[in-house]
């Protein structure tokens, strides 16, 4: 039995996405949490680039570029929030702040 590269890449993307989801559930540090979200975005981009190749269409890579920009915007807003909320706190824990409830 010979191994084809495409299923290996899809399996890797699935694994990376699941790692990101587990990180979002597990992390208490806002930075680790945002990095886990970045992992999930990376896995989605990987599937898009692979799909662009498998279906022989450049559209997948174009959409991947847009998602990359989306990830950058998400990181900027998330990190600004983390800085604004946690800069003067002793304990950096996403369960801690109660004033942003509701």
């Amino acid at each position: 039995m010979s191994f084809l590269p495409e299923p290996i890449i899809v399996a890797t993307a699935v694994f990376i996405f699941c790692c990101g989801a587990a990180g979002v559930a597990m992390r208490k540090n806002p930075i680790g949490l945002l990095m886990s979200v970045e992992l999930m975005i990376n896995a989605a981009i990987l599937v898009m680039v692979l799909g662009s190749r498998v279906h022989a269409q450049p559209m997948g890579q174009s959409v991947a570029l847009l998602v990359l920009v989306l990830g950058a915007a998400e990181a900027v807003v998330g990190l600004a929030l983390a800085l604004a909320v946690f800069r003067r706190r002793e304990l950096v824990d996403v369960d801690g702040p109660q004033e942003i409830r509701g």
Partner: protein
Amino acid sequence: MLPLVPVVVCCALAAITAVCVIAMRRPVYVAVALLGHSLSLAALYLALAAQFSAVAQTLIYSGAIVVLFLIVVALLPSGGAEQTSWARIGAGAAVLVAMLAALATAVAASGLAHAEPETFSVEQVGAPLFAELLLPFELTAPLLLAAIVAAIALWRRHEVRRDGDDEGAHT
């Protein structure tokens, strides 16, 4: 046909660094693991003959986003190890197993077509951005602008409130 060995090596590196991202406890190590993850994905895109995506991944992710993370790690008060509980780790493991099972079932049910390899030039990748994807492409400009304004507004509100606190403490 894709070259098998580089693909397998890059996939293994990407998977290992992804595990490092969620398993490491110090934020600086996590940022370095994310950097390695991003670079191994860029190498994988090169193996997939998607040069433009590889360059974009290296420039935007490794160059901009990871550096932004590192700056925020330096600015946050607690750069030390994260205190996590066993309940959290159990929840993360449960999510990992459940999502792996669900996604593996879905992927196994869908077949992968096997096309001849084709390399797309930057011109070919950029063409849909000005045809079918024109509206999303134009919307990224206000999105980025809104993200910048939101980041500055969050920061400024914090600064103003802190100045007010300081005045209150003096009087």
